[in-house]
């Protein structure tokens, strides 16, 4: 974006030499197609990306279409995760749109014989001062194979008209009228239906299957048995379900050698861990006078994603190549891992994203995709639809890992925080498919069950801000602090990314502990926070939410029934959006959240509505996690198999 030279970084995730038409196309009717690698997960990202493109190109919002995300045509933008879609894909698209607009203007200037500076653009029509004009449609043939240069500046904020407004979620109309909207609804001529018979518990080995009896059931096309991977394929979905029910009842599994699953978070403290200093600071002076210390331990159970619709995928093997439809968050990573397991080059696997039910991180989507591909191999030429059962979704999707945080603080005689120590125990939070995964490993569930078994990779913790360390460093400025990460390499159960990763427990712990300190020192919880917050934007969200909730007293009632409010604050990943939340709770025989307030500073907001919707959903989900959710085990079996267990 700077004029200075070649070494300036390009916007978002743009790569030098990337072609404009890899991201944007002008259709013959003058409408715009935007290409992104970021997938729609119900977060409204495609609406926001369309807003950015429409604004930069001066076309109405409804003239921009976002192309389906497909490994055969979309840019590889990695996983759609960690709130990075706007800063990566959005920034890239804005830059590309600016360069495409420039190309259109150059072309129009030549045609009209008018200097570029005298042209104006409105709703996809370029006009000269004398009234002559050219539509984008008539310039649709311009050469966009040229590379991105980074030499055109996108519009300044004052000239934007769509960014910052709330774009309508176009998909909602189809969803409220019951139109096919999800991969679950995909129908392909000749498609067959499959169900996978998952092991009853971790480590179970398949001993016997009634293959003949199952094969003889009505509509059953194939019984697939490969190691511990057992599945039935039938013409009709209800026939597949009937075969699944029978196979679950009659197949024999050896569960004898399985170890009990230590799902209790405090088990992490006993497991072997790698300890690393994340960050420390010392003022060198040491406190003067008496220091009182305060300690607390916080933990979080394993949490299931538990999307309302269980995972689903459709795959077909045709002409030696696979096509897979999936609600995965990372279709390129998935393609690599599928190709590994299927034993073919990535080019022979095409992965197409379709929406699924809500996605809050790495759920069973990728696993279902491998299930479908493995089964498609048994019935070449026919599309296979695999639908996970509800109880399997709970039992086998990767969980958000359990964690423990121990905090201690040193308080001087005036109640000031002079020292802060944070110790966090957590497995890695990234068990996702990866493009650098070696062939003998696989992140995909069925690959661990095949006769030629792939090793389950350790969840990664390599990224500095990833996993258990995320948001472990408080934004509060203390004179001395020490943040220590205890990485537990072997998790008790299958774990991976769940919304905000380790930030959930780290922030919960930090904020709860601040309240413990406030109570111990008789300080006002808001005042205490503001005393240690230096960053003006951080202070602003805390003050804003405190202001809104001011009418509600901090605490009323006593004994068995109290009502009050509590505040939490964080800056996501310590470098993204600032947020403060206040909730009013009623604590009697049970804890009820009566109201919540939120204040967010996310920098430039593309879709205000999208941001507010996400924040509201995040608050609701976090309340549910805190009050109701914990994955339970019974021996080596996951006992949580529904929302009520």
């Amino acid at each position, binding site marked *: 974006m700077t004029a200075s030279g070649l070494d300036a970084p390009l916007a978002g995730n743009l790569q030098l030499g990337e072609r404009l038409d890899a991201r944007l196309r002008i259709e013959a009717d003058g409408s715009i197609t935007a290409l992104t690698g970021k997938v729609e*997960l*119900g*977060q*409204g990202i495609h609406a926001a990306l369309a807003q950015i493109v429409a604004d930069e190109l001066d076309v109405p919002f409804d003239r921009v279409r976002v192309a389906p995300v497909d490994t055969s045509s979309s840019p590889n933008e990695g996983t759609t995760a960690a709130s990075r879609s706007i800063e990566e894909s959005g920034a890239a698209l804005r830059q590309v749109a600016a360069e495409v607009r420039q190309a259109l203007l150059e072309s129009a200037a030549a045609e009209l014989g008018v200097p570029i500076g005298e042209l104006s653009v409105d709703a996809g029509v370029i006009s000269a001062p004398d009234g002559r004009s050219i539509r984008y449609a008539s310039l649709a043939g311009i050469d966009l194979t040229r590379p991105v240069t980074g030499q055109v500046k996108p519009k300044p904020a004052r000239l934007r008209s769509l960014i910052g407004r*709330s774009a*309508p*979620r176009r*998909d*909602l*109309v189809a*969803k*409220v*009228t*019951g*139109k*096919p*909207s*999800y991969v*679950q*609804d995909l*129908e392909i001529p000749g498609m067959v239906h499959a169900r996978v018979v998952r092991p009853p518990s971790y480590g179970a080995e398949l001993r016997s299957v009634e293959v003949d009896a199952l094969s003889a*059931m*009505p*509509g059953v096309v194939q019984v697939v048995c490969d190691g511990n991977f057992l599945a039935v394929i039938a013409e*009709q*979905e*209800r026939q597949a*379900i*009937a075969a699944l*029910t*029978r196979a679950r009842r009659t197949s024999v599994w050896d569960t004898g050698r399985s170890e009990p699953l230590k799902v209790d978070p405090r088990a992490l403290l006993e497991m072997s861990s790698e300890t690393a200093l994340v960050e420390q600071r010392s003022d060198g002076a040491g406190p003067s006078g008496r220091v009182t210390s305060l300690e607390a331990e916080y933990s979080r159970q394993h949490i299931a994603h*538990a*999307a*309302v*619709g*269980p995972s689903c995928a459709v795959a077909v093997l045709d002409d030696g190549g696979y096509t897979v439809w999936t609600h995965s968050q990372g279709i390129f990573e998935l393609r690599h891992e599928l190709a590994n397991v299927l034993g073919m080059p990535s080019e022979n696997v095409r992965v197409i994203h379709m*929406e*699924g*039910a*809500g*996605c*809050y991180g790495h759920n069973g989507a990728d696993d279902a995709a491998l299930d479908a591909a493995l089964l498609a191999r048994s019935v070449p030429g026919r599309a296979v639809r695999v*639908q996970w*059962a*509800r109880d399997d979704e709970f039992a086998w999707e990767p969980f958000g890992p359990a964690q423990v945080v121990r905090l201690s603080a040193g308080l001087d005689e005036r109640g000031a925080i002079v020292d802060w120590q944070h110790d966090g125990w957590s497995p890695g939070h990234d068990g996702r498919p990866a493009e650098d995964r070696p062939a003998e490993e696989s992140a995909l569930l069925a690959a661990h069950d095949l006769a030629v078994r792939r090793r389950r990779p350790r969840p990664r913790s390599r990224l500095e801000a990833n996993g258990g360390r995320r948001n472990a460093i408080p934004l509060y400025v203390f004179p001395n602090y020490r943040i220590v990460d205890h990485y537990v390499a072997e998790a008790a159960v299958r774990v991976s990314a769940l919304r905000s990763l380790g930030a959930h427990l780290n922030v919960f712990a930090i904020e709860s502990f601040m309240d413990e300190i406030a109570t111990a020192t008789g300080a006002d919880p808001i005042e205490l926070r503001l005393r240690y917050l230096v960053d003006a934007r951080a202070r602003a969200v805390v003050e804003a939410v405190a202001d809104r909730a001011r009418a509600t007293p901090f605490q009323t009632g006593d004994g068995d029934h109290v009502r009050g409010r509590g505040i939490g604050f964080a800056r996501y990943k310590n470098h993204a959006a600032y947020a403060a939340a206040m909730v009013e709770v009623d604590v009697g025989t049970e804890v009820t959240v009566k109201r919540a307030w939120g204040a967010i500073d996310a920098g430039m907001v593309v879709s205000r*509505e999208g941001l507010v*919707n*996400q924040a*509201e*959903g*995040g*608050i*609701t*989900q976090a309340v*549910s996690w805190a009050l109701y959710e914990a994955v339970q085990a019974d021996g080596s079996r996951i006992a949580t198999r*529904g*929302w*009520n267990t």
Partner: protein
Amino acid sequence: MIERDPGTAEAISFVLNGGGCSVTVERDALLLYVLRNDLGLKGSRFGCGMGLCGACMVLVDGRPMPSCDLPLYAVAGKRVTTIEGMQAADGLHPLQQAFIDEGAGQCGYCLSGILISAMALLERNPDPSDADIRTALEPNICRCGAHARVIRAIRRAAGAAS
């Protein structure tokens, strides 16, 4: 689930979204799969198969019921309304419009069932309180956390109708 003999297939008739409908299928085939696969109506979604999440809710003679554990014979001769039958000939149902206006949904997977529950609620109680709405939506799970918006949307639709 019962293993079936294909020989037991029989024609079962009911009223679907206001029109006559006859399906020849095993009599204990579950309504959800008949709707989705035999009749091509994908609007009722599969969430649990146990009647616990509400994603597959339909109206049977005006009463909201999960269709995933409802055998087809149970609706013989009855009126079945799915999300596809909610839309009036002249446009969206006020509830559908209100959900769009309030942005009441993230992934939207739960919305068909929620709209069906809401429609039944407004039929019997055109001016529900928030508590009435919460009670009526008790059988519906939304995992994205659109609850507050859903309540606002139902209130808006009720307000528009009254």
